[in-house]
C-alpha cells in the first residue's frame, strides 16, 4: 500500500511539474512570430528578428522592457488551417505571416486586427513611401488595414534569351504587344519529326488569377464586377480575353497544356530550357539563378493586350493577431519590417523586392550576388561580369498593376476551384463561353450563400 501510494505521488508530481508555468523575467516582453515552415521563410524571419532585436538594443524607448521574439515556423501544408485552429483556441501568435490570398478569410473572422490606429498615431510609419497598391492587398473594402505588405509583388514575363537567340528573335521590348508575343511564341515552339512538341513558346498556371485576370483586363474585360460582388467571366469582353488565353493551348498550340510535362517530372521546364516564356514573380529569381547555370535569361513587362497593358500585383506580409497581449511591441516589430532597415534585410535574403518606393533603384535588391546564399554565381559565357537582370521591369510594372479589389473574391478556394474546372473543360474542348458561363453561375451561387 505504501509503495503504491509513493508511485502514484511520483507520477502525479511529474505530471504537475510539466504543467507548471515558467514566469518570464518582468523586464522582458516575449512575442511569438508565426511564419511558413519553408527554409527561406524561416531564415528571413530569423534575420528580421535579429535586426529588430539589434535595433531595440540601440533604441532608448525600445530597450526596456527588452523585446524578445520567438519564431514559430509552421512546417508542411496547412499554414492557414493552423492559424484558423489557433484563432479558435485563442492561442494565436502575436505577429503572423499572411499572404494576400489569406487576408479575406482572416479579416472576415477577425484573426488579425485593424492596424489603422497604430498607423495614424505613428509618424515614423512610412505610409507615403509604401506602394499604395501593396497597402491595398492588406486592406478591406471598409479601408481597414489587416496586413502590412513586406514586398512589392508584381508579375513579369520571364524569358529564355538563349532560346530567343537560337530562334533569331530579339529580346522583348518594354512596348511589346500580345501580337509580338504570339509571333514570338509561334517561332519558339519546336516539334520533332513525329510532331511531338519538344519546346513550348509559353507556359503558365492558367487558373492562377495572376495570369487570367490581367489577360482578360487587357482585352477590356473584368472577371469580377466593379463592386467586386459578382463574377463576370462570361461577359463578351471577358470571354475575348479568356478565349485568347485558351486558344494558345488548343488552337495555336504554342502554350504547354496544364498537367502535361515536357521534361522529366520534377524538373522545372523553364529551368530546363523547354519553355521560352512564362509569367513569374521575383521570388523565383534565386531559384532560376541557381538552376540555369548559363544565366542567359531575363525579364520584361507583360505584353500589352488590345486595350491596354495590365499585370497582376500581390504581396505577402505580416499582421498582428487580435489576441496579442503586447500590441505596442508587436506594432514596433511590424513597423520595423516595412522600414528601410527591415526592407534591406528582406532584399538581402533574395525573398522579394522592397515595398518602399524610395528603394526602387536601391542596389540592396538589384545586386545578383545576394541571390545565392549557397555559393558564387556561375557567370554567363557571354558576359564577363554578373548576369544582369532587367530589374526595372519589376518596378515599371507598378504603373499598370491591377487593383487588388478585383481579386478579393477570386482568392476564395471554392471560387478558385470553379475557375480551375472551367479552364479544364475549355482545354478539353468545351466552348469557352459555355464553360465560363457555368463558372459564373457556380461562383455567384457561392457568393449568394455566403451573404446569408
Amino acid at each position: 500500500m505504501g509503495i503504491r501510494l509513493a508511485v502514484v505521488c511520483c507520477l502525479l508530481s511529474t505530471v504537475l511539474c510539466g504543467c507548471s508555468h515558467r514566469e518570464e523575467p518582468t523586464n522582458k516582453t516575449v512575442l511569438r512570430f508565426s511564419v511558413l515552415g519553408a527554409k527561406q521563410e524561416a531564415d528571413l524571419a530569423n534575420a528580421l528578428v535579429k535586426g529588430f532585436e539589434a535595433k531595440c538594443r540601440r533604441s532608448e524607448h525600445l530597450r526596456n522592457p527588452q523585446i524578445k521574439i520567438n519564431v514559430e515556423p509552421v512546417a508542411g501544408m496547412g499554414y492557414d488551417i493552423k492559424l484558423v485552429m489557433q484563432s479558435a483556441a485563442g492561442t494565436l501568435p502575436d505577429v503572423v505571416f499572411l499572404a494576400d490570398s489569406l487576408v479575406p478569410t482572416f479579416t472576415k473572422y477577425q484573426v488579425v486586427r485593424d492596424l489603422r490606429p497604430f498607423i495614424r498615431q505613428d509618424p515614423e510609419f512610412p505610409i507615403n513611401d509604401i506602394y499604395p497598391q501593396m497597402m491595398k492587398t492588406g486592406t478591406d473594402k471598409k479601408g481597414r488595414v489587416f496586413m502590412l505588405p513586406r514586398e512589392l509583388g508584381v508579375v513579369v514575363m520571364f524569358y529564355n534569351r538563349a532560346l530567343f537567340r537560337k530562334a533569331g528573335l530579339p529580346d522583348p521590348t518594354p512596348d511589346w504587344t500580345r501580337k509580338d508575343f504570339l509571333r514570338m511564341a509561334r517561332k519558339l515552339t519546336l516539334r520533332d519529326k513525329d510532331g511531338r512538341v519538344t519546346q513550348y513558346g509559353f507556359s503558365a498556371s492558367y487558373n492562377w488569377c495572376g495570369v487570367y485576370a490581367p489577360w482578360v483586363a487587357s482585352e477590356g474585360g473584368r472577371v469580377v464586377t466593379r463592386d467586386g460582388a459578382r463574377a463576370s467571366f462570361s461577359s463578351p469582353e471577358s470571354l475575348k480575353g479568356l478565349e485568347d488565353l485558351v486558344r494558345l493551348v488548343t488552337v495555336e498550340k504554342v502554350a504547354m497544356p496544364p498537367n502535361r510535362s515536357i521534361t522529366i517530372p520534377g524538373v522545372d521546364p523553364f529551368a530546363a530550357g523547354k519553355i521560352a516564356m512564362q509569367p513569374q514573380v521575383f521570388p523565383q529569381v534565386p531559384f532560376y539563378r541557381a538552376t540555369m547555370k548559363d544565366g542567359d535569361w531575363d525579364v520584361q513587362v507583360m505584353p500589352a493586350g488590345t486595350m491596354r497593358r495590365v499585370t497582376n500585383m500581390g504581396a505577402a506580409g505580416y499582421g498582428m493577431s487580435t489576441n496579442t497581449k503586447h500590441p505596442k511591441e508587436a506594432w514596433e516589430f511590424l513597423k520595423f519590417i516595412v522600414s528601410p532597415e527591415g526592407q534591406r534585410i528582406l532584399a538581402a535574403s533574395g525573398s522579394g523586392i522592397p515595398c518602399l518606393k524610395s528603394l526602387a533603384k536601391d542596389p540592396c535588391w538589384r545586386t545578383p550576388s545576394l541571390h545565392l546564399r549557397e555559393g558564387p554565381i556561375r557567370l554567363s559565357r557571354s558576359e564577363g561580369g554578373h548576369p544582369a537582370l532587367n530589374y526595372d521591369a519589376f518596378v515599371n510594372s507598378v504603373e499598370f498593376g491591377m487593383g487588388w479589389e478585383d481579386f478579393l473574391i477570386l482568392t476564395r478556394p471554392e471560387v478558385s476551384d470553379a475557375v480551375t474546372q472551367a479552364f479544364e473543360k475549355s482545354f478539353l474542348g468545351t466552348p469557352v463561353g459555355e464553360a465560363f458561363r457555368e463558372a459564373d453561375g457556380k461562383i455567384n451561387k457561392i457568393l449568394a450563400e455566403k451573404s446569408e
Partner: protein
Amino acid sequence: MSKLRKRETIEGWAFIAPLLVGLVFFTAGPVLASLVISFCKYDIFSAPRFVGGRNYAELMTDPLFWQSLKVTAIYSFVSVPMGLGLGLAVAILMNQKVRGIAAFRTIYYLPAVVSGVAVALLWMWIFDPSYGLGNVVLRSLHLPGSQWLTSPKTSLLSLILMSFWGIGGGMVIYLAGLQSVPQHLYEAADLDGAGVLQKFRHVTIPMLTPVIFYNLIMGIIGSFQVFTQAFVMTNGGPVNSTLFYVLYLFRQAFNYYHMGYASAMAWVLFAIILGLTLVVFKSSAFWVYYEGERR
C-alpha cells in the same frame, strides 16, 4: 461482492482507465461531436448554428457530391473484385515449392508497405504522357500512348490500375489461407479423379471463402476511403473525373471550412460502408464455408 473481488475490480478499471479516457476523448467524443456538427452550420470561427437536416438536404442537390460518389463507386466496384482476383492468382503462384520463392513473396509484398505519398509520386512519373514508363512500354509494343491522368477518359482507369500495385497485402493473407487448406481434401479429390481446375473450383475456392470474405470487406472499406492518390496526383481532376468522396469531404472541411457539411458527408459515408458491409455479411451465409461447419 467480497473485499478481494472489489479490489480486483477497482484495479482492473484503473488499469484500463487510460485507454478508456483516450477512447472517450479522442474517439467516441469526436465521433459524437461530428454527428452533432452534421446538423449545424459550422466554420470553426463562429459557434455552430443548428440547421436541422439542411446539410443532408443540400448534399442531395449537390452535383459534386453525386460525382464524388459515382467516381468512388466505380473505383470500388472495379478495383476490389479485380484486386481480389489478382491477389489470389499471385498467391497461388507464390504457393509453389520453388527455390527462392521467399524472395518472390517479398518482392510482391514490398509495394504494400511503401508510403502512400511516395507511391503516388512514383506513379505520377510512370503515368507521365511524355516521359513516363507507361507510354514507353506501350510504344515499345507498337501501341498508342495513353493520356493517363491528363484525360478524364483515362484518369480513373489509371488510378484503378495503380491500385493493383498493393495486391501484396491481400496476397499474404491468401497465402496463409492456401497453406491451411487440409491436404486430405486434395487427396480425396485426386482419388475421385478431379483435375487441377476442378480441385481449384471445388476444394481451394470453397476453403478460401473466409479469406475472400475478409479481403472483400476490407477492400470495400478501404476503396471507399481512397484519398492520398487523388490528393497528390490529380487533386480530383481533370474535370472532377477523379474527385473521390473523401477528397471532396476534405475539400469541404479544410479548404472551404464547411465543417457541418463535411460532417454530414462523413456520416453518409459511414452509412454507405455500413450498408455494404451488412449486405456482404448477410450474403456470406450463401457462399462462405467454414471448416467443420454443418450445412
